């Protein structure tokens, strides 16, 4: 494991997130997000969220065409990492998903990026890459079948599932 690379990645993720959060906040004030469940176009609600373990949400959400982790996403992933450190015999699959508003093939690649974005963050909190595999579903497995911005925001996600 190349610690330098990981630290560098974390730094980039943090910096980019800060920049984006700033933009997102500005946007929300004008677009008054759908029933308070979205910030910018990232889902912030809990409707579809399940628990990986007690108090540990299983998924994080992304903005359209983005792979950057939000502040809330990073908090969720830190909880997942803490739980994984405590349960060192458990391996996970991080499933990456996209919404239906993109071509199938690009979305497969995007889902893979999102899953790796979550995986990289878990790794920076000490989880070995051997314990985390990634699986992209692209737009093939939406959780919400609606054709509207809120539904799409729930579908742009990465979900951490137990592999054993």
């Amino acid at each position, binding site marked *: 494991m190349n610690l330098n690379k990981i630290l560098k990645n974390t730094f980039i993720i943090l910096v980019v997130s800060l920049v984006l959060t700033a933009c997102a906040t500005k946007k929300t004030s004008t677009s008054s997000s759908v029933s308070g469940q979205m910030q910018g176009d990232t889902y912030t609600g809990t409707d579809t969220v399940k628990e990986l373990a007690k108090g540990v949400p299983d998924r994080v959400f992304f903005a359209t065409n983005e792979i950057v982790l939000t502040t809330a996403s990073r908090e969720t992933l830190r909880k997942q990492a803490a739980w994984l450190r405590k349960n060192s015999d458990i391996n996970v699959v991080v499933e990456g998903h996209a919404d239906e508003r993109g*071509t199938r093939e690009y979305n497969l690649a995007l889902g893979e990026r999102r899953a790796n974005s979550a995986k990289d963050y878990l790794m920076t909190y000490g989880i070995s890459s051997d314990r985390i595999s990634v699986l992209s579903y692209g737009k093939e497995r939406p959780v919400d079948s609606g054709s509207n911005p809120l539904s799409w925001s729930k579908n742009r996600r990465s979900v951490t599932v137990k592999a054993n």
Partner: protein
Amino acid sequence: MLFRYLFILLILLPIKVFALIEVDITRGNLNPLPVAVSPLDIDKNSKDNFKRILKKENLGSEISAIVENNLKQSGLFNPLNKEAFLQEPDIANLKPRFEDWNLIKAQALVTGKVTFIDEKLRVEFRLWDVLAGKEMMALAFTTVPSNWRRVGHIITDKVYERLTGEKGYFDTRIIYISEEGPKTDRIKKLAIMDQDGFNNKFLTLGNELVLTPRFSPTNQMVTYLSYFRNLPRVYLLDIETGKQEVVGDFPGMTFAPRFSPDGKKIIMSFAKDGNSDIYTMDLENRIVERISNHPSIDTSPSYSPDGKYITFNSDRSGYQQIYVMNSNGKNIKRISFGNGLYGTPVWSPRGDLIAFTKLHKGKFYIGVMRTDGTGERLLTENFYQEAPSWSPNGRVLIFYRESKTNSKGEGFSAKLWSIDLTGYNEKMVETETDASDPSWSSLLSN
């Protein structure tokens, strides 16, 4: 079964070139050519034999109905109502009374004859120019009776070619993904059918997710993405034998496969650690070559028909755009510069155009542009549609379209559609189930 050897084609008479009827297919055809397709003549003995073998009351009429339907679907021809025909099939095939056909405004006439000889199906047909009062073409062929639908398609291809000057696309098949079940948990199967929707067959059972099948230019092989054992990998399937194998067994996801024009290589994306690049695999020696190398997403590669270039989709500029490079990965050039996002570039079999999907202001478009990116033309707009595939003559595109669901998330459907390069003749392609990811084969005969 090898298709090409089943047909013994013979030319009855030398085809003379007259300055006869011509159909211009380069522009939208708002006045389809009126054509009369006479039922093919059939003698009593042949009729009885085919009825016994194929359970078809009158094979002559059945075959002419296929031709009629094909011509109508092309949008270039207007097959006339048979009830208006004044001449019987047998006499018409010998010597049409052109005045009679002229009277019902037919400009072209197709006649023919079906016979049962030595357990085989023999078909002859003739194409006549009604106004000039001349025979334009006469052909005959013999095949096994079970090939009777293909006979109808081959006749259509010959008629189309004679009247438009370009090869047809009727004796072809479509491989696609059959879809069933709720949107959140779709069951997807590999399926294949004739171009006109008949002879539908499922090639997988639906136990694992399958996506994006593509025909080899040799027609017997298909490459596609399967999630077998939850490992998304590119597979190769021989549709004649049913034999399947992994070709993209890399340490990560392989996807977006297509054949090279000679059918010897598969080009695909390989995703690892959040980065997708383009690779090729030689099917003979299994040598893998990396073609693109960039931290962005590179996917949806498609070769030019001469194999010298590759068009692909990349977000290296920050957003999805279309690029062209040499087949060795050198000399990468972005070609899409319009507003919006561009994806799924597919090189036309004629070489001059690239078809694509475009997303702009919440709408999806199927369009075409020249290979240098100029002359962008959007053919159709919808809530969601993508994945164009060219007919083998480069005149028609088939793609899939998904519907918007209602406020309860119900009413989802996915259907195949086709549209002429001219932007005219847009229509749904009937399938037994919902359908997506169509890929058009090349001509089975010739």
